[in-house]
């Protein structure tokens, strides 16, 4: 397997681990924030370098240079491929922007150590293709939010019960696969358990309530960072997609489609911004799963594109809501707040990110949504139209929230509530990505198409938990999928 020029992946994981240890001993919250920003910034640099280095290799997968993990644990434990290459810098960017945009008034409440620990776990998971590794890291990721919930004196039961069940199902399912050995078709029970675990982690209806509970009771930043990297979707691609037969994947896609519509409808009746955001995010992340599980090159490419666009845009949307909360406390959507005159830049950014999430023309989400709709209608001609309906409802929800928060009255304030320099920096960075990706979408789409073909290629080989691969005999014939069947936007 080709090698990167430096051990970027190891650096991306070790840096936040060391950073967390370094911040642990710091008592001054402001100093902890500064150190967290530096560490997260370094991690972002390493993750970005991984992506760029990988890009120059023109290969589907690569290992670290001076890799010490592979000889010990196997070749799939620490690897970067077409799927994970852009996800690494995107995730690191989110973990960098959240502490950067944390106001001083909130630094005492924000768990910086947990933030860095979560970053390390997330980077490790995105660098891992080995089943047990992913399941172990998913299990570890639930610890920082659970600790925070406990520190805040909130019930941890809804969150922990759901996450424990998720990990239990994934472990049991993967264990059964391991026991079955390399086969073209695995047992239905094993596949169902894996699928159920993924559905739980992705918050698919009716097992989604842990997500709303997390947004209710954890800090907004922690909840954002737990859900926006879409670990559930990653688990779906790595654990379920290679082994599940078409019927199982399409069942997940249909459930996700239902969730997308349900969550979009729920977003419209929410009276509080955090719950509103949670449902809006849930609707979009479900659309990502719809694309991923359609098992067609166009649908899969659409799902992967929307993954990136939603990750960027809704993270920005969430950052704006968090910035508003930092100024006024938790916000209700029952009444108008009229904050536009106080913070026009934040208002504009809120609208931009919201529109990008629904795939508005000129933004990063536009082409991905087109691909997703095309793929969905191609597979399910009638039901696929629900993707369009969900997107329409989400569009209404975005403008509804914009009007409620920024218009309808004039908010008076004795101090300036405008965006602070750090917030402006975050806004400019995300705006550049959102508009740049919208105006020049070809490189992103091309890269996601390569990832999609790679994933479909992986479905040709029955994957077993031991990591041994055996050629041929798959549920789907790749030549048939990738053949010259005319599919258009």
């Amino acid at each position, binding site marked *: 397997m080709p090698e990167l020029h430096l051990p970027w992946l190891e650096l991306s994981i070790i840096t936040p681990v060391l950073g967390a240890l370094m911040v642990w001993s710091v008592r001054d919250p402001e100093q902890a924030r500064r150190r967290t920003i530096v560490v997260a910034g370094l991690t972002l640099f390493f993750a970005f370098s991984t992506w760029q280095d990988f890009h120059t290799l023109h290969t589907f997968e690569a290992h670290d240079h001076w890799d010490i993990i592979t000889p010990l644990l196997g070749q799939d434990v620490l690897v970067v491929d077409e799927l994970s290459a852009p996800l690494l810098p995107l995730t690191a960017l989110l973990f960098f922007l959240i502490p950067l945009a944390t106001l*001083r*008034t909130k630094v005492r409440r924000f768990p910086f150590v947990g933030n860095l620990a979560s970053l390390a776990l997330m980077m490790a998971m995105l660098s891992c293709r080995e089943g047990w590794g992913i399941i172990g890291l998913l299990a570890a990721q639930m610890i920082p939010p659970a600790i925070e919930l406990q520190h805040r004196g909130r*019930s941890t*039961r*809804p969150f922990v019960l759901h996450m424990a069940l998720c990990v239990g199902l994934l472990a049991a399912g993967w264990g059964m696969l391991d026991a079955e050995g390399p086969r073209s078709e695995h047992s239905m029970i094993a596949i169902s358990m894996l699928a159920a675990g993924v559905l739980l982690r992705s918050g698919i209806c009716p097992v989604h*309530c842990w997500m*709303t*509970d997390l947004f*209710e009771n954890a800090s907004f930043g922690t909840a954002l960072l737990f859900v926006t990297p879409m670990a559930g979707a990653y688990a779906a691609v790595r654990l379920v997609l290679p082994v599940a037969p078409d019927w199982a994947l399409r069942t997940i896609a249909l459930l996700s489609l239902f969730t997308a519509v349900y969550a979009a*409808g*729920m977003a*419209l*009746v*929410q009276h*509080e911004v*955090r719950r509103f955001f949670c449902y809006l995010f849930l609707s979009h992340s479900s659309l990502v799963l719809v694309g991923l599980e359609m098992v067609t090159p*166009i649908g899969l*490419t659409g799902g992967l594109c929307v993954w990136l666009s939603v990750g960027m845009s809704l993270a920005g949307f969430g950052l704006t809501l968090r910035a508003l909360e930092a*100024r006024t*406390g*938790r*916000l*209700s959507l*029952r009444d*108008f707040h*009229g904050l*536009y*005159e106080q913070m026009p830049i934040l208002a*504009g950014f809120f609208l931009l990110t919201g529109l990008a999430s629904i795939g*508005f023309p000129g933004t990063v989400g*536009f*082409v991905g949504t*087109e*691909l997703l*709709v*095309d793929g969905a*209608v191609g597979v399910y001609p009638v039901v696929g*139209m629900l993707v*369009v309906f969900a997107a*329409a409802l989400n569009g*209404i929800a975005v*403008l*509804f929230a914009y*009007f409620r928060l920024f218009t*309808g009255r004039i908010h008076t*304030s004795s101090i300036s*509530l405008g965006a*602070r320099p750090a917030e402006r920096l975050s806004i*400019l960075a995300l705006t550049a990505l959102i508009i740049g990706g919208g105006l020049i*979408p*070809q490189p992103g*789409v091309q890269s996601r*198409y390569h990832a999609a073909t790679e994933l479909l290629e992986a479905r040709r080989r029955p994957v077993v938990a031991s990591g041994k691969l055996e050629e041929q005999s798959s549920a789907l014939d790749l030549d048939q999928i*990738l053949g*010259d*069947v*005319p*599919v*258009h*936007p």
Partner: protein
Amino acid sequence: MSLDHFMTLLGILVILPPAILLATLGLSTLVNRPLGETWTSRLSQVCVSTGLAAAVVMLVMMLTLNTRFVPIELGNLVTIPQQHFHFHLKFVFDRLSVPFVILSYVLGGTVGAFTTRYLHRERGYNRFSLCYAFFMLGMIVTSLAGTIEVLFLGWELVGLSSALLVAYFHERPSPVINGLRVWTVYRLADAAFLIAAVAMHHLTGEGDFSVLMGSGPWPAGKAALTGGQAIFVGALLLIAAAGKSAMIPFSGWLPRAMEGPTPSSAIFYGALSVHLGAFLLLRVSPILEQSVLLSVLVVLMGLTTALYAAITARVQSDIKSSLAYASLTQVGIIVAEIGFGLRYIALIHIIGHACLRTLQLLRAPTLLRDYQTMENAIGGRLHSHPSSWQQRLSPTTRVWWYRFAFERGYFDSFLNEYIVAPFQAIFEWCDGMERRWTDFLAGGQSRESDVVEAQPHVVEQMEM
């Protein structure tokens, strides 16, 4: 420079100015350095004049060369060759797009010039200009679109700017609520458009109008769809057109849209945006020809809308709403003309009507003064006489029709009662069930959001 290159350059010159206007205003706003009124106005004038001049030169060139179709290929925004997927950026200059783009520039420029004075020193001048730039770009892209995807792109830009301008006076709840209503109808209509576009791709394998609508330049051409396919796709496009042009059953948003400032009302609901539905039907008119049933549907929708709007316009108590319904009456007639296959008449009707209505709406703020001037000139009051219809109808029937018109056909009440309320009730019930579930899991109250006040006692705490 060859003739083809010159025409391409000219075509780009038509499309580029509104994009430059939007980019300049958007970037300056983003970096918190919005342009002043004078610069915004000048830039707007330069962009509109350049675009208009290029469009006129293009028209002259087409007439001189006796060319009816000039395609401008700007390549693919995105392509996946292995899957034959492409988003083709193609614009066309033909007998439909050239008049429409010139009309857009003329009326857009007029309203832009009017705005300079009308909104002078308004706090939201920059916001208005930004939305105006969005609108102009959307209109030009829609008018010149050579593929259905490009048309959809422009269509969306027009929709967003429209909703934001309805909510222009956003310090009051009423314009904002109305803006959201407009946006809601647009989103649902746009969903129908998107489904139609995707369906067309899957049915014909193409998105290019020159293939979808036959090889001949507009209005010639034969759609590459069978009768049954034409009904399905055409019905979806009809819904999209009805939503954009406020035709029945979506007419409820039109009077609400009058909450916006007069310049935006003029350009959106008097002149351009309200005709976009008719424009779409004209563009896809070969599809209508494939099915008699579809054509009948278009005629029926047009005539019903015209009749409804004509009745409703008579009882409006403010001039802008009255003009809006008068405008809708004409749009209904235009749509009926399209259904009858009278495409050139419909196009001429659009141009004439848009110009007249823009003038009327821009004069609307001075209506009382105009009346005064007229009354002073004739030396007495202006009288209105009951129409012959009024004299023939019984008082009960007159009251019934009056109430029907006053309530604007009960369309809003119908939508609120039979669609919005059940939708809300279902999801609120689901929300209640979720609360019970999380409370059960948490062993107590699980939602802090329940106690969040509608208007928090703001404790502003900002520290640098």
